[in-house]
């Protein structure tokens, strides 16, 4: 396993390695998307309580899951970059940060759209939506920090530190927002609690989560590949590669 990370540290091997993963990720995400959408929109019966509005779950839950998954990937890369100084980890962190922000925003938007038929208002200070909003702020913090520091190497290290600090903060926020929600217990009806879900509804959901995850892997690796080429543009292997195109 350790040689894998060591190989990731040099630009060239990262380029080749990711080249092999990308087609697999792309294919898997498209297949799972097809199955998930068909399953979710047609095959799954409407929910007895919410009718067809529950189908928003097939976009909301995967993007919410992804927003946390991407942040864990970013934290893992931050540790790799700060402790073992693996250069490619900085690249993956810098690349997956906007993706994470997009999926968090998507989760927030679909969550509030889902709230409209349930409560009649778009925004409700429900514990999970609020935590999702604060997570979006953490993503913005990392993005803004990495874009404001001029020197590229310092920017990478600083955003890695901020990601680690953010990672420590997520459980604390989750805990304190839940406590805050019970303190000011308004009329929030628990719609997000996972009621026991029929298998025919569950399989498309798992497929969609897989599809989103593979899509993220696909986007992240291909963006990292392009940036890796630009980063090592002086290296000889890049020169040969460009000549071979």
């Amino acid at each position: 396993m350790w040689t894998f990370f060591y190989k990731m540290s040099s630009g060239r091997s990262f380029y080749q390695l990711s080249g092999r993963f990308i087609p697999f990720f792309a294919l898997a995400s498209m297949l799972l998307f097809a199955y998930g959408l068909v399953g979710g929109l047609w095959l799954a019966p409407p929910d007895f309580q919410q009718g067809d509005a529950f189908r928003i779950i097939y976009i909301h839950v995967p993007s919410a899951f992804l927003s946390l998954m991407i942040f864990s990937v970013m934290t893992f890369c931050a540790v790799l970059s700060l402790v073992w100084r693996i250069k490619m980890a900085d690249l993956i962190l810098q690349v997956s940060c906007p993706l994470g922000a997009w999926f968090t925003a998507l989760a927030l938007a679909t969550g509030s759209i889902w709230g409209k038929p349930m409560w009649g208002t778009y925004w409700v200070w429900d514990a999970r939506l609020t935590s999702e909003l604060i997570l979006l702020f953490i993503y913005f913090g990392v993005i803004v920090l990495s874009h404001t520091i001029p020197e590229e190497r310092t920017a990478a290290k600083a955003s890695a530190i901020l990601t680690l600090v953010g990672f420590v903060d997520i459980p604390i926020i989750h805990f304190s927002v839940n406590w805050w929600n019970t303190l000011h217990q308004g009329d929030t009806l628990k719609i997000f609690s996972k009621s026991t879900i029929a298998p025919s509804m569950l399989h498309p959901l798992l497929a969609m989560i897989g599809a989103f995850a593979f899509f993220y892997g696909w986007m992240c690796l291909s963006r990292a590949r392009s940036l890796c080429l630009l980063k090592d543009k002086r290296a000889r292997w890049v020169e040969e590669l460009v000549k071979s195109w």
Partner: protein
Amino acid sequence: MVSHFEQFLAMGGYAKYVWSAYGLGVIVIIGNGIYTARIKRDAIAKLKRRYRT
């Protein structure tokens, strides 16, 4: 007799919400896909310019 397709589109009266949510999903997914392709195209162009001249 409302054809099966119209009934499907109606989404049991929640058409507005379901389709807007899916629309946003499509925008985010396709948008990021296009942006990735653009990053790749710019990188290749920049490298070509660097090594061709």
